[in-house]
Structure formats: structure tokens, C-alpha cells
């Protein structure tokens, strides 16, 4: 009560409750402030998620459509099939470029200046002749007829039609000239310009031209890499976990392994790239830029995740199962393989899928082992040169063309969709097989 005596002389002695009551207002205000700060932090975290997704979707959803120009192309027999044999060789060598250009010029008979003509033909993609060739080679009965064909437009036209190029800006500030805008307007009025579903994006490999670039090559590369990674890392991870959890004697060697696994899980991924470069490529001579070497690096990288998850799954199987099996005369290995492993398998698979999801999104170590090579062809094996989806995203993000921005975002959307799918499967597995003992 000594501290209460320090009040002004003459005043009645203050009681503890008075001090508390005086400070209450301040303390409640502080309480509210603290609470608000917490709510703001949560709100910020949620806002970042929304912002990130909104940004990517708003940048990328337009990439699923592609601008085409409908042109009446006359497939003159003497040009398409000069030899007149309908041979693949004769048809494939024809000058399709000329056919398409002529068709476009027919639409604008008033354009005669050479410079303007060149600008006119640059409205079409450089890949358009190739697409027409593929079509004619598939169906040779088209030869000699005039077909209304949807011809792939150049990426600048695509951007213009999608509104990514400001038509009001000064001519020097945009990539298309006033005449081109006029022509596009004319074609739009005639209903000759249409945005159609972008199949090229899903069926082609990458390209220097945005309108011809697709993710098929990168997706196949990712598929090969992940398949091999899973085939290598799952058996190894499960075997290692089984040994460490169930068989290993407690000694220094197993302690060392245990510490190692935990530390490897936290090593920066780029260090695994250095390992891959020095050991797999430099020492063992595994070919660069192949799904094989990528899978080896990914296996090393995901192993700790799978081992740790598998050990947790093994731990959750109650000892009574083991005792029962041993009691009826099963050997130690039979106990594990016939009784413990089947019960722990869903948990192990969940861990493996999460590890695979991480491997699917991993980029940094792959840059070092040559996965950034520019590869147009879709890979067809584990030792073909390939790239993977996240690396493709990285490469496209570096490209200056406006058309690549939306394609990069669209590729990110595809990547995220796969990641969600994998995590969803993992959660479902856990829900379905989770058991309380």
C-alpha cells in the first residue's frame, strides 16, 4: 500500500481499483489497436493472394484466344501442285506465302505502293503459310478451289484487336501505323476478323513469334521429367524411410543420415543445380538439357520431402499392427511389406505428390543444367532436348514482345492449374484414407 500513499496530501487515499479504472480506457484502446493490426495483417495476406491471381488472370486470359483473318484463298493448282502429281513433295514445296498474300491484297485493291504492300502482308503471321500447307497436305481435294480460310494474324494485329495497343496514341508510340489500323477497321466491319480459340498455344512448341508460340513442348518436357522423377524418387524415398524408421539400429551412422535428410530439405534449390552440373553432367556425362538430367536433379531435391513424409506416415501406423503380424509368425520384412506399408501408403503418396508439385514449379536448378535452350520441337523421349513449363515461363517473361506477356500469364495459369490439381489429389487422398486408430 506504500505506492498509494504517494498521492497529493489532503486527498483521500487512492485505491487500486481507481488506478485500474483510470487506465482501463487506454488499455482497451490498445487492445483494439492490437486487434486491428492483426486483422490488417491477415487482410494484407489475403489481399496479396487476390492481387497475384487477379494480376495474372487479367494479363493472361486473352491468350486463350487468337486473332484470325478470314480470307478467300484461291488454291491455284499450278501454284500449289506444280508437278500435278498430288505428291506430298510437290505440294509441300509450293509457295503458300504468295497465295495468302494475294488473297489479302484482293481485299485492298487500292493499295499499290510497294512499301504499303509490304506493310499489308506483315499483318499476317509468318507462320500462316506453314499452317495452310499442313491443311492442304491433309486434304488434297482443296487444290484448285477457292476457300474461305481463317488465316493467322500477326501478333501486333492480335494485340490491336484485343485492345492492348492504344489506337488513340500518337503513331510513333505504337507498333502499328495508322494505315494498318484503318485496314483492320475495314476488315472488322466486313466481319473478316475474329478471335477464335487458340489451339496453337496447346499444340505447338515455343517460337520467336508470339502468335506461333505454344506450351506443348514445355508441357511434354515437364511430363517426362516428372514421370522419371517419380519413378526414381518414390521407391528410393519409401525404401529409405522404411529402413530409417523400422530397421535402422540407433547408431552414429543413422543419426548422420537423419541430420542430413533434415538439412538437405532446407538447402537452396540452386545448390542442387550446381550439383547436377558438376556431378551428373561434368562427371557422369549425362546429356545436357534432357528430361533425364532434370529428373536426376529433381530426384535428389525431392527425396528429403518424400523421406520425411513417408516416415511420418509409417509412424502413424500403430505398433499393434506390427505386433500382431510378428505374433503370427511373419518375418520383419513380411510385417512391413504386407501390413505396415499398405496402411502407410496413402500418406506416402500424399507426400510424394506434394514433392512432385514442388518439382513441377522448380526453375532455378534447371537453368544451370541447360534446360533454357531454345527448343522448338516437342520432345519425344527422356533423352531428347527439352525445356519444362516454369523455365518456358521464365524465357517468355524475358521476351520484349507484348504478345508474350499474355502468353506468359496464360502459361502460368496452366502451371497453377496443374499445381492445384496435384494438391487437390493429395488432399483427397489424405481425406479418403486418413484413419484414426
Amino acid at each position, binding site marked *: 500500500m506504500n505506492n498509494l500513499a504517494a498521492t497529493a496530501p489532503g486527498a483521500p487515499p487512492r485505491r487500486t481499483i481507481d488506478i485500474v479504472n483510470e487506465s482501463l480506457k487506454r488499455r482497451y484502446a*490498445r487492445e483494439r489497436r492490437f486487434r486491428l493490426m492483426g486483422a490488417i495483417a491477415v487482410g494484407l495476406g489475403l489481399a*496479396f493472394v487476390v492481387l497475384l491471381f487477379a494480376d495474372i488472370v487479367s494479363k493472361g486470359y486473352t491468350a486463350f484466344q487468337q486473332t484470325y483473318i478470314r480470307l478467300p484463298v484461291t488454291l491455284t493448282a499450278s501454284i500449289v501442285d506444280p508437278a500435278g502429281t498430288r505428291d506430298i513433295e510437290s505440294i509441300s514445296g509450293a509457295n503458300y506465302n504468295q497465295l495468302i498474300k494475294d488473297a489479302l491484297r484482293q481485299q485492298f485493291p487500292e493499295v499499290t505502293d510497294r512499301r504499303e504492300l509490304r506493310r499489308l502482308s506483315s499483318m499476317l503471321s509468318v507462320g500462316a503459310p506453314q499452317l495452310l500447307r499442313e491443311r492442304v497436305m491433309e486434304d488434297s481435294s482443296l487444290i484448285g478451289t477457292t476457300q474461305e480460310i481463317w488465316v493467322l494474324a500477326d501478333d501486333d494485329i492480335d494485340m490491336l484487336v484485343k485492345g492492348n495497343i492504344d489506337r488513340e496514341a500518337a503513331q510513333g508510340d505504337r507498333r502499328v501505323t495508322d494505315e494498318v489500323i484503318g485496314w483492320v477497321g475495314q476488315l472488322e466491319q466486313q466481319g473478316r476478323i475474329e478471335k477464335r480459340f487458340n489451339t496453337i498455344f496447346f499444340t505447338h512448341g515455343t517460337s520467336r513469334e508470339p502468335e506461333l508460340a505454344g506450351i506443348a513442348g514445355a508441357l511434354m518436357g515437364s511430363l517426362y521429367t516428372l514421370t522419371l522423377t517419380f519413378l526414381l524418387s518414390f521407391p528410393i524415398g519409401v525404401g529409405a524411410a522404411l529402413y530409417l524408421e523400422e530397421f535402422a539400429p540407433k547408431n552414429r551412422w543413422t543419426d548422420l543420415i537423419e541430420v542430413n535428410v533434415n538439412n538437405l530439405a532446407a538447402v*537452396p534449390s540452386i545448390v542442387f543445380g550446381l550439383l547436377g552440373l558438376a556431378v551428373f553432367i561434368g562427371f557422369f556425362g549425362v546429356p545436357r538439357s534432357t528430361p533425364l538430367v532434370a529428373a536426376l536433379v529433381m530426384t535428389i531435391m525431392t527425396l528429403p520431402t518424400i523421406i520425411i513424409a513417408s516416415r511420418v506416415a509409417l509412424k502413424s501406423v500403430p505398433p499393434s499392427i506390427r505386433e500382431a503380424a510378428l505374433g503370427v509368425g511373419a518375418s520383419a520384412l513380411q510385417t512391413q511389406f504386407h501390413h505396415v506399408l499398405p496402411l502407410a501408403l496413402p500418406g506416402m503418396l500424399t507426400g510424394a505428390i506434394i514433392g512432385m508439385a514442388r518439382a513441377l514449379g522448380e526453375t532455378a536448378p534447371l537453368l544451370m543444367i541447360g534446360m533454357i535452350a531454345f527448343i522448338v520441337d516437342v520432345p519425344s523421349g527422356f533423352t531428347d532436348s527439352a525445356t519444362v513449363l516454369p523455365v518456358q515461363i521464365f524465357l517468355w517473361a524475358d521476351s520484349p514482345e507484348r504478345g508474350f506477356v499474355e502468353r506468359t500469364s496464360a502459361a502460368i495459369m496452366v502451371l497453377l492449374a496443374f499445381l492445384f490439381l496435384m494438391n487437390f489429389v493429395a488432399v483427397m487422398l489424405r481425406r479418403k484414407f486418413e484413419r484414426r486408430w
Partner: protein
Amino acid sequence: MYAWILILTLLAVMAVAYQLGIKRAISSVGGLTQINALHSLPSYYGLYAALWAGIPALLLMGLWIGFQDQIVTSLVTANLSPDMLEGQSSGRIDLILNDIKNLATGNIVSATVTPEVQAAADQYARLERIATWSMWLAVLAVALGGMAYAWRRTGPQMRARNRVESIFLAIMIVFSSIAILTTLGIVLSVLFESLRFFDMVSPVEFFLGTNWSPQIALRADQVGATGAFGAIPLFTGTLMVSLIAMLVAVPIGLMSAIYLSEYAPRNVRAVAKPVIEILAGIPTVVYGFFAALTVAPAIRDLGALLGLEVASESALAAGLVMGIMIIPFVSSLSDDVINAVPQSMRDGSYALGATQSETIRRVIVPAALPGIVGGILLAVSRAIGETMIVVMAAGMAANLTANPLESVTTVTVQIVTLLTGDQEFDSAKTLAAFALGLTLFLVTLSLNIVALSIVRKYREQYE
């Protein structure tokens, strides 16, 4: 391609061996009725035969594929006329050999094809063909030999189960040693290359130098050919980006963990926690794209509005986005430790009349502090090792600056830039990447060890 067919063939041989092993075991005791006389179940005899057919053959195949190219190449090189190789640098010889190989596989060649090269290519193709065929023969012979051995050994007295189980156990031991081998591989490969680097550049210059410009000389007499390898600007750049990231991640992560575990109603927590954790599952290349194309321009525009000069690849943009990425690490680790604080401590504090925020600040956070610090250290090690965000959003120029609006570069960015070009493997430039990698590995490793030991020690207190 042929390797896959051979592996499939081997699997088929193993399947046959399994069936034969079972048949042999049953017939050795005189049919199914006498099966009790067998030491093990019949399937173990099958597995025994299959393993004998498969494992030695697979090992042989692995070795063969590993050494075939080397042997064939040395045979071809030995056959080349000496005047083609004399006085050539090793790079030229590699180029010639490459041409020979490309010619043999029908690819494009860099130089004009001389008759000698053509002859060598023919020889190379022939040797490769012979080697591939003899590999098939040898591997299949070993597989059949193993099968025959198992066939001869199979009998009622053979303890097939024990043998099979010891093989399985050995395989599992090998698998778990891979973790050790990986660490050993990382340390040795990175260490050796770093030592070679420190032969060329002194460690003092590397760790204390302030000038980083690892140009590579195209000609020996080129100006500035030696390059400068002072890594201090990289270390400060890394620290600055990580610091900005932690300034974003720690307050937001910690406060949201506190709010979600102490204040939020259960249904808010059930939604908000997993949504925030989505941030941890997004690939870093996506964050890099977001930083480079959305955040960096926004910061530049904002800077221009305020009259500030902001580099287009500022440390601030990279750090901010990295901070967003790290929020879930901090929040979920803090959430775990806050939930581990016993309820009795909260009740004690409330009983003394403390408000909820006073309890959190005076009781819960101090009690959880070691765990929180451990979590933050783990997050720091993550920030230091993060690559894609800084590669895409931070710069390449090694500025020694304390201004977050300028462009800086980091250790990981330099590792990537040094190693993604087509460089000779033993130039100082590529080796510098390994020295940086070693530094990175050691720093993150010690951070992790410290963090994990803090977390573990703390956890034991309340259990």
C-alpha cells in the same frame, strides 16, 4: 532408346525367372502336395531367381552405358592421324570429335568434312553399333546366367526367404545412404571447383574485394581480361533484398499468426489460414514474373510521382515480392509455436486481469520467442537462397549501395548468370559460381542448423 527396350526385355526375363523359380521349387520337393518340405514360400524362390537374373545384369548395363562412349571415343582418337591432332588445343580436339560424332549420327557438322573425318565417323558409327550389340548380348547372357545359377541353387534346403530379405534390406540401406551421398556430392563438387577458383583468385580478394565484374577474356591480350572477383557487392545486395523481404514478411506473418490463433473465430481461421498458405505453394518463377512486370513498374511510377529516381530493376521490388512469398513461412511456423504455448499460461494471465493483447505481448510472445526466432531464421535462409525472383526482378550490375531504389545483384543471380552462358568449364568465371555456391551453401546450412536447434530446444520445454 535401345536402353529402354533392353530394360523392358530384362524385366520380361525377370518375370520368366520368377515363374521358373516357383516351378523349380515346387518340383524339387515333388509337387504341390509336398510343399511343406520347402524352407520358404514358393514365391520367395521365384523372387530369388528374379533378383539373380535382374540385379547383376542391370549393374552391368549401368557400367556399360557409363563407359561405352569414353572407350569408343578413345579408340577413335587413337586412330586419327597424328598430324590432325598435333599442336591443337584440347578445345579444338573436342570440336573435331564432336564433328565426328555428329557426322556419325547424321547431324549438322561445324566444319567441312574431310575424308579423314568421314573415315573416323564411319569407324565411330561402326564401333558404337558393335558396342551396343555386345552390350545386349553381355547383359542378356548375365541375366540368363544369374537365372541358371538360381535354378541350380534352388532346393528344399535353400533358405530363399532369408536371402531375398537380406537383399531387400541391402537395397534399403543403399537407398538411405543416397542422402549422405548427396550431401557428400554437393560438398565435394562445390568444394573442388571452389578450390580451383581460389587457385586463380585469392580468397582475400573474393571475400573482401568490392569490385565485381567477371568478364571473360575472348583473347588473351584483351583489355580488362582478368576480371574482378570481389564479392562484397553481391553479399550486400543479397542482404539488402533479404532485409526488405523480412521487413515485409515478419510483421505481416507474425501479426496474422497471432490474430488467427488468438482472436479469429474458428470459421475465419479455417478459411484464411489455407488461403494465405497458397502463397507458399506458388512457384517462384510466378513471383518473379509478378515482380518484374507488375510491382517494379508500379514502384517506378510511384517514385516518378514523388520525384524519386527508381531503377527499373530495383532492390525494393524484388524484396517486396520476396517478402510476400515468405509470409506463409513466418506465419505457419509462428502459428505452430504460439499454439504450443500451454493454455494454463493464458489462463493465469487473464486471471490477473490482463487484457488479451497484454497477455499476448507479455506472456505468449515471450514464451514463444525462441520458436519464433527459429522460424524467422529459417525464413532468412530461404530468402538468401531464393533465386528466380531476384533473377527476374533484381539487376545484374553489382552496385555497392544502401539505396533500395537502385538496382543491386545477389549471389544467386550471379550464379545463374555465370553458369547459363556457354563457357569453358574451367574458366575463372564459371568456377566463381561454385565459390559463390559454396558460400551460399555454408551460410544457409549454418542458419538452418542454428534455427533447428533453437526450435527443438524450445519444443522440449513444454512437452
